[in-house]
């Protein structure tokens, strides 16, 4: 024989559950709080991790997300072969790559820094220091550099060996003071006279900014000149590395292999090359972020678990207190299943209310964090769904044991209970 649930059984039992929870207001509130805190913690972790993602992306973007760089692998000096000195990249290689018109490449620039020396710069009687780099016309665009004053290099600046320079904000400050526009002024780098044509906008000096092709140098201390001029100045004939921008982020790897293929062909495979892409850094930081999120989720889950234990405790007490009522319901025709449903419903109700409150709290926390940190933090909507599911799951799991116990009682056992 099978019992059928009445139409509206759930609704009526739900109504009674509400009343039962109201009867034990303090206890109900406490266990709701447990779940609320847990869910809010989970939500906040989700929001913050999404915000972190945003910060990392926008930070990396200031260095050009699609930028790639190629340089010789200095570890390839095999003692059994003839020693090959040099950087493995010559001006002719650069020209050849440009001429080849690689489809994955949008921009390309040589970077020459010689022995990576700092250069003394002078304007009138003021002195400063700068990291000098000889670059091509595409350099600024590849690096997402913007100008505070002036203009970028033009092709003819490079090809005609013009004595022009673009300076970082630190250099500008040292030579001219922070507020004056130095475009058109003549400065001395070493023995030579250069005309300032632009000032780079300042870049963040954070940890994140120190990675990438800038290779740990301070972006605001740069002193950029045409690479051709730099080679004349120093007598250095090669290119230290090539920097390029791929047409899209997924094309970064293709762009790198196109460059390397041409380089190897030109040097008859005498060198090996290494490369870096922003895409790699993005992957790495995303991985780190994933772990951070994971740890956060674990921590939040612990508080959710504690909330679940709270529900379990409260349901056990509630079952104990209502043992007589359970006996009565069974005497009136309730089956084990119907008793189980009733108590599970109560547990789910607690955790659901707790979940909703936690959600609201988590979202508010996210928005106020966003407000105070000026980072556009947004609740992660998948996380909302997950936490709702989790809170109901916690209710089900933690309500199950006490409910199961209650449902299994013989009516007479329940009646005798005091």
């Amino acid at each position, binding site marked *: 024989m099978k019992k059928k649930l009445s139409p509206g059984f759930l609704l009526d039992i739900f109504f009674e559950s509400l009343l039962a929870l*109201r009867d034990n207001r303090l206890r109900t509130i406490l266990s709701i709080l447990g779940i609320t805190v847990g869910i809010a913690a989970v939500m906040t972790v989700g929001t913050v991790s999404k915000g972190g993602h945003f910060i990392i992306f926008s930070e990396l973007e200031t260095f050009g997300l699609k930028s790639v760089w190629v340089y010789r692998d200095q570890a390839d000096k095999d003692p059994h072969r003839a020693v090959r000195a040099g950087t493995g990249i010559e001006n002719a290689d650069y020209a050849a790559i440009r001429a080849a018109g690689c489809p994955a490449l949008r921009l390309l620039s040589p970077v020459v820094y010689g022995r990576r020396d700092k250069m003394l710069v002078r304007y009138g009687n003021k002195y400063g220091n700068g990291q000098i780099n000889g670059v091509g016309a595409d350099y600024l665009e590849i690096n997402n550099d913007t100008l505070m004053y002036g203009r970028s290099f033009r092709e003819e600046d490079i090809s005609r060996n013009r004595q022009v320079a673009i300076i970082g904000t630190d250099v500008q400050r040292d030579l001219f003071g922070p507020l004056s526009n130095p475009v058109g002024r003549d400065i001395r780098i070493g023995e030579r006279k250069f005309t300032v044509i632009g000032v780079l906008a300042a870049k963040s000096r954070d940890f994140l900014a120190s990675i990438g092709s800038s290779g740990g140098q301070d972006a605001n201390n740069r002193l950029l000149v045409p690479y051709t001029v730099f080679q004349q100045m120093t007598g250095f004939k090669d290119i230290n590395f090539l920097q390029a921008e791929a047409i899209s982020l997924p094309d970064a790897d293709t762009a790198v292999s196109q460059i390397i293929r041409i380089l190897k062909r030109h040097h008859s495979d005498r060198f090996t090359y290494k490369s870096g892409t922003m895409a790699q850094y993005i992957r790495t930081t995303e991985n780190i972020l994933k772990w951070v999120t994971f740890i956060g989720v674990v921590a939040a889950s612990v508080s959710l678990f504690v909330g679940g234990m709270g529900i379990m405790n409260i349901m056990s007490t509630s079952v104990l207190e209502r043992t*007589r009522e359970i006996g009565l319901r069974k*005497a009136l025709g*309730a089956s084990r299943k119907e008793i189980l449903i009733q108590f599970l419903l109560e547990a789910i109700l607690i955790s659901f209310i707790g979940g909703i409150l936690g959600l609201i709290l988590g979202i508010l926390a996210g928005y106020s964090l966003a407000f105070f940190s000026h980072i556009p933090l947004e609740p992660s909507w998948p996380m909302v769904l997950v936490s709702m599911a989790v809170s109901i799951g916690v209710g089900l799991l933690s309500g199950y044991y006490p409910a199961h116990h209650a449902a299994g009682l013989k009516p007479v056992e329940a009646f005798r209970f005091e």
Partner: protein
Amino acid sequence: MIRLSNICKSYRLGEVLLPVLKDISLTIGAGEFVAIMGPSGSGKSTLLNIIGCLDSVESGSYHLNGIPIDGAGDEELALIRGDKIGFIFQLFNLIPRINAERNVELPLLYAGIARHERKRLALAALESVGLGDRALHSPMQLSGGQQQRVAIARALVNRPDIIIADEPTGSLDSLAGREIMEIFAKLHAEGKTIVIVTHEEDIAAFARRVIRLRDGRIERDDIRP
């Protein structure tokens, strides 16, 4: 029809096994009005709970309307308790947080009846015990006699064949007790089988048959003409 054969029941108290019912055989026909009497601790409630399918037996067999109760599963027992038997308790056992009408509705809820019909039947049952105007009162707002009448309405609402009551007047004053017993007499006249436990002779006087227990055995079984 209630048929008990050679029922034994004992409780374990620590190490010792305390026999409460010793080889009880008893048949109660449809439409009988039976009072179970006996000194305190003689096993009256235990016997009544077994008759009401609230407790299991240790040995012996119990058939209700020809159905063996010992082998019945949880859902089957729930159906029998809900449909065939109406229970009335000494302490009324109303659920305090819901009103009289909702209390009376409970057996219908578990019987699978729709909400609207439940409400109609529950109100009719309350009318029949003279509490039609108290439907929305909470149990706390009712006197003991009124509470017991709500409990009777609840026991009757599913139209069971058998009414089982354990000292239904035990918590009431004699006037209220009398009113309750008059309802029982009326139900008996309508053809219900009624089994009550009591230790008051004037309550037992409403019944047509009195079974006296002593030490877990039937001492006497008198049927009045």
